[in-house]
C-alpha cells in the first residue's frame, strides 16, 4: 500500500532507492507461492509480428510459437532494457513510478496494434464472422469454433507458466491482452473465470504434482476450469459455507457434498476449484470446521450442473449451479493445506482483479471511436453533434476515464510484475472499483450521445450497457471492495499511528503541543511539499499543478485518517459510510498518482500526443482534488453535520416499514 498513510513521506514521494538486484531465489514465501517471482518474461509476436492483420488466427498461432523460440534471446534483451530504463528513470526522478521498467512497458507494441482493428471491429459490430458478439449475445452461447480458436491461440493459458504449456505472460502482458479480449464481454468473462480464478488456485497454491497434472491440459484449453465458492447461503460470508468434505475411513479421499451457485463456466468446466468445510484438529486438540480448497475433476463422479442462468448481460458466458453429490476427491487433490482454504480463496480473488482496468479501457477506446464517428456525422440544426458543448464534454469524460483506468491498471500490473514487490491487492481492488464504475458511466454517457439508436437492439451499444453492469457486481461488489480498500489501508495507518495516538490519549504534553502547533500551521494555510516537483522532482513541470494537488490531498488525507482513528478507534469497522469516503479518497489518490506518473513518463520519453495526456491528467487531478476536498471535509465532520445521521434515520424508518413512507402528494387531511 503505497498511496496511503499520514502523508509525510508515505506516498511514494521520496525517491525510492533502486531495489537490490533480483535475488537468485524468490525473496519471500508468498512470492514463491504465487509463482510470480522471477518469471521469464516473454513477448508475444515479437517485433513486426503479425497478430491478426491479414494472417488471421493461424498466422497468429505461428507467431506465438515463433515467440516461444525467440524467448531466450528476448529475455536477455529485456534484462538489459531493465537496467537502462531503471537508470533513466531514477536519474529523471522516476521514483513515483514504482517499477520503472514495468510501467507502461508494452510487451509487443507493433504486434498488438496491428491485431486489434480486426478483432475489435469484428467483436463490436458483428461483421467479423470469427467473433460475432451479437450472435453470442442472442444465442447465449459462445460457438464452439470460436472457443477452439481461442484455445489454439493459447488464450486459455495466458498466465500459466511456460513449463506447463502456457504462455507464461507477465501481468503487464496479460493486461495488454485483456484489452483486446475485453471487446467481447462474454469471451472475456469466460476466459477470466477460467484463468483468473478457475485455475489460479493451482498456480498459486498447487503442488508440483498438481501443477504437472492439471495445468498443461488447462492451458491448452482441453479442460476448462471453474471457481466454486458462492453458495445459496454464502456470498462473502465464509462461515456459512455448507458444502462439506469428509475424510473417508481409509483416509485416501474426501467425500464432497453440497451445491454451489453462480458458477461461471459451471457447465463447461472439467476442473473445479471447490471450497468446502472440513474437520480440522487444532493444535490444542479441539476439532474445528475449516475451509479447504479442492481440485475436483468432473470425472470424479457425482458432479452435476443446473441449466445455464438467463442473465441480463454477458449472456454468452455460462453461469449455472453446480452440485456435488458424494464426489470422491483423492487426498492429493487438496489445494494448499487442509484447513487453509480461506487463504487460498482470498489470494485467488485478490490476484484476479487488476486486469479489469485494461479490459474496460480497451472497450472504452473502441466505444469512443464509434460514438465519435456518430457525433461527427449526425447533423442537427445544420451543425454536427460534435459541435455542441454538451456532447463534447461527454467525450472528454470518456477519454479521461479510459486514460485514468488504463494508467491505474498498468501501474498495478507493473507493480505485480516487479520482483519482490509486496502485495498489491488494495491497488487491484482500486482498479476494479474505478474501472467498473467508469465503464458504467461512460457507456451510459455514450448512449446519451447516440440518443435512441443507443437504445435499439440493432446496435451494439445496449449490449455494452448490459454487459458492463456486471462489472460492478462480480469479483466482490464495489461496496465490499471499498470496505476492503478502506479497512486494509486504515489497518496499515493504524499501526503507524498507534504510538502517537496513545501518547495523545495519555496526555503527553509534547505530543499535544506538537499536534496543536501543526493544526495551527494548517489553519493558517500551509503549502504542502512532499517533493514530487522541483528540481529533483519526479513529476514533469507541466504537471506541477496536479502534483501539488496530489500532495495537498495526501497530506490532509493523512490528517483526516488520524482524526478518524482517534475518533472511532476499532469501531470504525462499523462506520461504513465513513469507510466509503476513505475508500473514495484513496481511489482518487491512486488514480492521480498513476496519471501523473504516466503523463510525466510520456513527456520524458517524448511519446506522441503527450500534450493531450497532460490535459487529461490535469483535468483528472483537478476534479479528483475537488472531490477529495469535499469528501475530506465530510470526514472531518461528525455524523449530524455530514448528513450521515439523517441518511441512516431515513433508511431505518423505511426498512422498518419495508416500504416508501411518504404519503401521496395528492393526499389530504380534509
Amino acid at each position: 500500500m503505497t498511496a496511503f498513510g499520514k502523508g509525510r513521506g508515505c506516498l511514494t514521494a521520496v525517491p525510492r532507492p533502486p531495489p537490490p538486484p533480483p535475488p537468485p531465489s524468490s525473496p519471500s514465501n508468498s512470492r514463491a507461492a504465487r509463482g510470480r517471482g522471477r518469471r521469464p518474461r516473454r513477448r508475444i509476436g515479437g517485433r513486426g509480428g503479425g497478430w491478426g492483420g491479414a494472417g488471421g488466427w493461424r498466422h497468429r498461432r505461428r507467431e506465438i510459437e515463433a515467440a516461444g523460440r525467440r524467448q531466450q534471446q528476448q529475455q536477455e534483451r529485456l534484462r538489459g532494457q531493465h537496467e537502462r530504463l531503471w537508470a533513466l528513470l531514477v536519474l529523471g526522478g522516476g521514483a513515483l513510478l514504482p517499477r520503472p521498467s514495468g510501467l507502461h512497458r508494452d510487451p509487443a507494441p507493433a504486434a498488438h496494434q496491428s491485431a486489434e482493428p480486426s478483432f475489435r471491429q469484428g467483436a463490436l459490430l458483428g461483421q467479423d464472422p470469427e467473433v460475432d458478439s451479437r450472435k453470442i449475445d442472442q444465442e447465449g452461447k459462445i460457438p464452439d469454433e470460436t472457443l477452439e480458436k481461442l484455445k489454439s491461440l493459447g488464450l486459455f493459458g495466458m498466465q500459466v507458466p511456460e513449463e506447463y504449456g502456457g504462455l507464461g505472460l507477465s501481468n503487464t502482458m496479460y493486461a495488454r491482452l485483456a484489452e483486446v479480449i475485453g471487446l467481447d464481454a462474454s469471451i472475456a468473462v469466460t476466459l477470466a473465470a477460467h484463468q483468473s480464478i478457475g485455475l489460479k488456485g493451482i498456480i498459486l497454491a498447487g503442488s508440483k504434482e498438481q501443477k504437472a497434472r492439471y495445468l498443461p491440459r488447462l492451458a491448452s484449453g482441453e479442460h476448462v476450469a471453474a471457481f466454486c465458492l458462492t453458495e445459496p447461503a454464502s456470498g462473502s460470508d465464509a462461515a456459512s459455507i455448507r458444502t462439506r468434505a469428509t475424510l473417508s475411513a481409509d483416509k485416501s479421499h474426501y467425500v464432497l457434498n453440497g451445491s454451489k451457485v453462480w458458477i461461471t463456466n459451471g457447465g463447461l468446466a472439467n476442473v473445479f476449484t471447490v471450497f468446502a468445510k472440513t474437520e480440522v484438529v487444532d493444535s490444542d486438540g479441539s476439532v474445528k470446521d475449516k475451509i479447504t480448497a479442492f481440485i475436483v475433476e468432473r470425472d470424479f463422479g457425482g458432479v452435476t450442473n443446473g441449466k445455464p442462468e438467463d442473465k441480463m448481460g454477458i449472456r454468452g458466458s455460462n453461469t449455472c449451479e453446480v452440485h456435488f453429490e458424494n464426489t470422491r476427491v483423492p487426498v492429493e487433490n487438496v489445494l494448499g493445506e487442509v484447513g487453509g482454504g480461506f487463504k487460498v480463496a482470498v489470494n485467488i480473488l485478490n490476484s484476479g482483479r487488476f486486469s479489469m482496468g485494461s479490459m474496460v479501457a480497451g472497450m472504452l477506446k473502441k466505444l469512443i471511436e464509434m460514438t465519435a464517428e456518430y457525433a461527427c456525422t449526425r447533423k442537427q440544426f445544420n451543425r454536427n453533434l460534435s459541435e455542441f458543448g454538451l456532447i463534447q464534454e461527454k467525450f472528454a469524460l470518456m477519454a479521461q476515464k479510459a486514460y485514468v483506468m488504463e494508467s491505474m491498471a498498468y501501474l498495478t500490473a507493473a507493480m505485480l510484475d516487479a520482483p519482490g514487490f509486496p502485495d498489491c491487492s488494495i491497488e487491484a481492488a482500486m482498479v476494479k472499483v474505478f474501472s467498473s464504475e467508469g465503464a458504467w458511466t461512460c457507456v451510459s454517457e455514450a448512449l446519451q450521445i447516440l440518443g435512441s439508436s443507443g437504445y435499439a437492439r440493432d446496435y451494439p451499444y445496449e449490449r455494452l450497457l448490459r454487459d458492463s453492469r456486471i462489472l460492478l457486481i462480480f469479483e466482490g461488489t464495489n461496496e465490499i471492495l471499498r470496505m476492503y480498500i478502506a479497512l486494509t489501508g486504515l489497518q496499515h495507518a493504524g499501526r503507524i499511528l498507534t504510538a502517537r495516538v496513545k501518547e495523545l490519549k495519555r496526555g503527553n504534553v509534547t505530543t499535544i503541543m506538537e499536534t496543536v502547533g501543526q493544526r495551527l500551521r494548517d489553519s493558517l494555510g500551509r503549502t504542502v511539499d512532499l517533493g514530487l516537483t522541483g528540481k529533483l522532482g519526479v513529476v514533469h513541470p507541466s504537471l506541477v499543478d496536479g502534483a501539488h494537488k496530489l500532495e495537498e490531498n495526501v497530506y490532509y488525507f493523512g490528517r483526516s485518517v488520524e482524526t478518524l482513528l482517534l475518533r472511532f478507534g476499532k469501531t470504525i469497522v462499523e462506520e461504513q459510510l465513513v469507510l466509503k469516503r476513505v475508500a473514495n479518497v484513496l481511489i482518487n489518490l491512486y488514480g492521480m498518482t498513476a496519471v501523473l506518473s504516466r503523463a510525466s513518463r510520456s513527456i520524458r520519453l517524448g511519446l506522441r500526443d503527450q500534450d493531450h495526456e497532460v490535459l487529461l491528467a490535469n483535468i483528472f487531478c483537478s476534479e479528483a482534488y475537488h472531490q477529495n476536498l469535499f469528501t475530506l471535509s465530510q470526514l472531518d465532520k461528525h455524523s449530524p453535520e455530514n448528513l450521515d445521521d439523517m441518511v441512516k434515520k431515513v433508511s431505518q424508518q423505511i426498512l422498518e416499514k419495508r416500504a416508501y413512507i411518504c404519503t401521496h402528494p395528492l393526499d389530504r387531511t380534509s
Partner: protein
Amino acid sequence: MSWAQAILLARGASRGWGGICSTALTGAPFSQVPPQAPRGLRCSAAAHNPDSSLVPHPPEPPRRPVKALAVHEELFRPALDGARNKANFVRAVQNFTEYNVHKRGHVDFIYLALRKMREYGVERDLSVYNLLLDIFPKEVFRPRNIFHSIFLHYPRQQECGIAVLEQMENHGVMPNKETEFLLLQIFGRKSYPMLKLVRMKLWFTRFKNINPFPVPRDLPQDPVDLASLALQHMEPDLSARVTTYQMPLLKDSPDAMDPTETHIVGIQSPEQQSALARHDPARPIFVEGPFSLWLRDKCVYYHILRADLLPPEEREVEEIPEEWNIYYPMQLDLAYGRSSWDDYEFNIDEVEEGPVFAICVAGAHDQATLAKWIQGLQETNPALARIPVVFRLSGSSGELLPSSSELEEPPPPPPEGQEEEDSQQRQQQGQS
C-alpha cells in the same frame, strides 16, 4: 334581500340585542344564555335535547312544540322497507325542507336529526352534515354590523350550528369547503360556528395522523381476526408470522368459553425463533400475562413468553471468527479503541429487558389454554421441549369484569414459588 325580510330581520335584531344585553349583564356563560324571544324566521322549538346545556323556555304555547316535535319524529319513522340507511335519512331531511318551506322549527329538527344519525349509520358522512347545515336559512343570521358580531347574534341558531360541528368532531369528520361555504352563507365569517370550523380545520389536520400506530377504523368482529390484528399491532418485525394454534368453536353457546375450545393465536418472528433456539435450557422461561391492549373500543389480552436477562457476567461476547469474510477484514487489529471519554451512550438511560420469544392472544387466560400454546410453539421451536416453562399468570386481567364472566377467571394463584414448582412439574410431566 326583500323589503319584508329586512323588516323582519330588523325586528329580530332588536330582540336579539335585548337578549344579549341581558346576558352580558348577568354575566352568564354563553351556553346558559336565556332563551330569546321568538323572532324573524325562526320557528319555535321545545326541549330538543334533554341533556343539552341549552334549555330554552318554550317561547310559544306549550302545545305547539310538542306538536312540532311529533311532526319531526314522524319524518324519521322507519320506512316501509324498514331499512335505516342514508337514503332514508336524506329523504327525511328532504321531506322536512319540502314540507316546511319556511323552515319553521328547523333548529329542533336539526337537533333531532343529529340524534338520529347514529341509528341511520350516517354519523361519519360529511355530505349528510352538509345537508343538515343546508337546512338553515341563508343570509338571515349573518351579522349586519359590528355590534352584531360583538354580541352573540342569533345565539340559538349559532348553538345549533356548533352542535352540528361538534358531532362532526366527535366522529372525526373533517369539514370541507362546502361546509365552510354553508356556514359562511348562514352565519357569516364573524360567528361562533365559523370560529369552531376554523379551529377544527387547524387541529384536525394536526391530530388526524398523530398516532404512529394507526388502528383500522372498523375492527374485525371475529376474535381470531381481532387477535391477529392485535398481535401484528404489537410486533415490530414484519417477517413475524401469525399462527392460529386453535380455532374457537363456531357455536355461540356458553360452552364456547370452555378453555379447550377458545381461540389461541400467536406470533413469532424468525429472530425470536433463533433466540429461543439459542436459549440455555438450564434457565427457565416464563409465560406471563394477561396484559391488556386496547384497540379503539376493544380490549385484547395477551401473554408473552419471555426469559430473564442474563446476568452480565454470563453474557457471551460475540466473537468475530478469524476467517469469516472473504473480502475484507471484519475487525481491525489496533491497539486502541474508544475510551470511556468517547462513550456516546454514557448518558442514555436504558433499561435492558429480557428477551421476549413469542406473544399470544387466547380466549381464556388459564394455564391449560396457554399450555396448548406452548405445545403448538414446540412444533416450530424444538428447543422448547428442553426448556422448563414456568407459568406466571396474574389472577385477573386487570379489568373490571361483569359478574357473569367470573367463571372464566383462573382460580386464585397459589403462592408463587409453589406455583412455579407445580407448573414445572406439570410441564415436565407433559413433556415426558
